[in-house]
């Protein structure tokens, strides 16, 4: 239920709805899309990345001297959790072909494909398998399967969305593998939305010039993730899953190749060593670092662990100055602040509106542009709606969807969204949602090529942890595709490599060397990373935890 003081603004939304409905039905854009100059202008002035204090020069490591997102620089200029001299690497606790770090979509896809190519793997994951952003994507996955569409058209849309900074070979891999991924998942038992003749339902997302968003109601990520997890669990003799046991540092061999990792059981607080012929970093993103103080759509464990352990080992990062804010995070009620509202709502005809019930932006600009335009409307034009706790937001007019797509569409296609709001007495079929950009995605990551190879031999990276494929701005539906395409590729190429490599003596000397670099650069910090979990303990409680010794957020 919205508070009474919002009634007047809500009435204005209702009053303008019929006119906006007619406009949407005409097939023309409901608001003029921005050209290149307009995009640049709104990004420069209002996107959080472009604030001066958003970026900070990193003083050590492979990207030394570059401006990275401030919170990332601070996380990278940190101490390790471990003391290398305490580990005996001559007798590792586990040995396997491939160590896969992260049990989300990319990690599970990699494990399944590696298994099909004959490699055994260990999945090390911080929480449960599937506790990942992959589980949470609602709206869909892009893949060019329609006759009026093509992988090259998909390529052009992705490049434009990424401001042409994307690595071409990666975008080609992404878009050309797309149709195959749809089929591969279906053969594993994934359910795609289809009509009775089998034709795949395809919708628009921000920045798409063809309808290519394929979906599974608004549980797309959950259905894919559970299909992959189930397949992993069906093969316990080939894939070993270690839950609540994240990897905290990489292990190297004498020739500087990645050769496994140090794992930490967060419940028993024990450390374990894993020797692996190849290592796949699939740790996902960093939303729980709450960059610039933003709420996030991300899952509990999204703390950028893979970045810091790869960086310490010498991996080069790409586009770590660029953060994605999802245009439509929820801001009311307070209990669901920051939660993701799928972009498919706008794909199906939902419109962002200011407090006067007016359109102020084309509803399907690429995410960074759409977010910046919403912030501009709230901050510069002062046309936002304030919530009781002082957050600002604009309306996202969802009742239009059933008007445009036919009665029952929201019930059939957005059951998760409907459920999210009806718990708090807001029926999105009748009333709009209140939204503001929410921290959503790590655009950059460890630089890879189209075989998922990083600059460290034996270290493969896939999914959100990698950088290059999305340039500096990812389009909707391309991350679900990304973790499948590159998870599969990582599984394939890591297996190929693992079959040939002969490892030398193991070491974790790079951890000492990095500590030495910190000292030389005179960096004083008490931060320990990987961060592993965010802390939501109130300050007053933490003060009373006198006897607790913390390493980051964990004891």
């Amino acid at each position, binding site marked *: 239920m919205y508070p009474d003081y919002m009634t007047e603004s809500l009435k204005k939304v209702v009053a303008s709805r019929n006119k906006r409905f007619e406009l949407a039905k005409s097939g023309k854009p409901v608001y003029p899309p921005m050209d290149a100059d307009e995009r640049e202008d709104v990004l420069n002035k209002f996107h959080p990345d472009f604030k001066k204090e958003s970026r900070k020069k990193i003083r050590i490591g492979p990207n030394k001297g570059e401006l990275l997102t401030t919170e990332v620089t601070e996380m990278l200029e940190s101490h390790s959790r471990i003391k290398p001299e305490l580990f005996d690497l001559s007798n590792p606790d586990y040995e396997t072909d491939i160590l896969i770090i992260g049990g989300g979509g990319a990690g599970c896809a990699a494990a399944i494909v590696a298994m099909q190519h004959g490699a055994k793997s260990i999945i090390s994951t911080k929480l449960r398998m599937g506790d990942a952003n992959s589980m*949470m994507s609602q709206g869909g996955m892009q893949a060019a399967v329609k006759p009026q569409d093509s992988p090259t*058209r998909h390529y052009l849309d992705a490049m434009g969305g990424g401001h042409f900074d994307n690595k071409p070979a990666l975008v080609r891999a992404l878009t050309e593998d797309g149709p195959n991924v749809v089929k591969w998942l279906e053969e594993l038992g994934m359910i795609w939305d289809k009509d009775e003749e089998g034709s795949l339902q395809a919708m*628009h997302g921000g920045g798409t010039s063809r309808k290519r968003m394929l979906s599974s109601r608004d549980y797309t990520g959950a259905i894919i993730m559970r299909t992959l997890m189930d397949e992993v669990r069906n093969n316990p003799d080939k894939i070993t899953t270690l839950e*609540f046991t994240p990897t905290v540092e990489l292990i190297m061999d004498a020739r500087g190749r990645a050769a496994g990792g140090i794992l930490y059981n967060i419940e028993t607080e024990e450390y374990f060593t894993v020797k692996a012929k190849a290592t796949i970093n699939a740790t996902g993103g960093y939303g729980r670092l709450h960059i610039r103080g933003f709420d996030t759509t991300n899952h*509990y464990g999204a703390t950028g662990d893979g970045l810091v352990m790869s960086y310490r080992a010498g991996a080069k990062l790409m586009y770590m100055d660029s953060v994605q804010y999802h245009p439509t995070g929820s801001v009311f009620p307070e209990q669901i602040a920051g939660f993701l509202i799928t972009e498919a709502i706008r794909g199906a005809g939902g419109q962002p509106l200011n407090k006067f019930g007016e359109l102020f932006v084309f509803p399907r600009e690429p995410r960074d542009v759409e977010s910046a335009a919403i912030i501009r409307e709230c901050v510069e034009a002062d046309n936002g709606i304030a919530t009781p706790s002082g957050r600002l937001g604009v309306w996202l007019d969802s009742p239009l969807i059933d008007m445009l797509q036919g009665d029952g569409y929201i019930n059939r296609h957005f059951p998760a969204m409907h459920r999210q709001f009806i718990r708090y007495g807001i029926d999105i079929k009748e009333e709009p949602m209140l939204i503001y950009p929410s921290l959503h995605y790590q655009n950059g990551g460890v630089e890879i090529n189209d075989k998922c190879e990083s600059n460290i031999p034996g270290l493969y990276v896939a999914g959100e942890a990698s950088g290059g494929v999305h340039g500096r701005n990812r389009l909707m539906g391309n991350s679900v595709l990304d973790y499948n395409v590159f998870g599969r590729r990582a599984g394939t190429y890591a297996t190929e490599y693992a079959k040939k490599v002969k490892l030398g003596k193991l070491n974790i000397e790079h951890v000492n060397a990095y500590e030495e670099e910190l000292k030389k650069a005179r960096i004083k910090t008490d931060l320990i990373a990987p961060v592993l979990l965010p802390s939501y303990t109130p300050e007053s409680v933490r003060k009373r935890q006198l006897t607790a010794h913390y390493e980051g957020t964990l004891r």
Partner: protein
Amino acid sequence: MAKKKAVKKSDAKATEEKMVTVFIMGKGYKVPAEATIMGAIEYAGYLLKRGAGCREGFCGACATVYRMPGDYKIYTGLACTTRVEEGMWLAQLPASPAHKAIYDIKKIKPEVATIQELYPEVFRCVACNSCSKACPQDLEVMDYIQEAKRGNIAAVMDLSFDCVMCGLCAIRCPAEIVQYNVGLLCKRLYGRYLAPESKELTKRIKEVKSKKFDKEFKELMTAKKSDLEKQYYDRDLES
């Protein structure tokens, strides 16, 4: 404009907020009345390792059972999306012990015999409806178990679609069925065997395999940025 961190926020507002008392595993704590169960547990000072995942109602990590004062009923909910109430007595389910059948999706059939073989306990269902009552997603869990007994795979898929696999149904079931794993099996059977084939997809995969887009890709990948930009801003939008 950046918003305040959740951490700082709850602290700053603590004095002015309306508070309620909840009993976390039997121990009383004063927490903000507007908090979710998960927010309340963290506010009390716990660092969650079990019992928190996506925090948005999709992953099923935070199954919680609770009772209210003067009420004999057991209530269930997801900690991330259920609001606290005065006097609530709650405990989280750290994990649910569940039987999962191991199978090869390529070798099973979408029929009742598969259910009989992999999850024979389904046929012990006494139709008590405890599962449906426990479901935090308000699914008709018992109905899909009935459909599973009939081998109606498509109906199980549809009725169990929104399942988050939190385990609350299984833990309440007197017949010891693991409903959510039956649902997942049927979803996979449906996706692989019963969903109608997409002819356009089959055709597109053939085109990709025959390198139909090779030349276009090469042109795009070697184009100057200014040319690519022009193509991008000039491209037509499907309505």
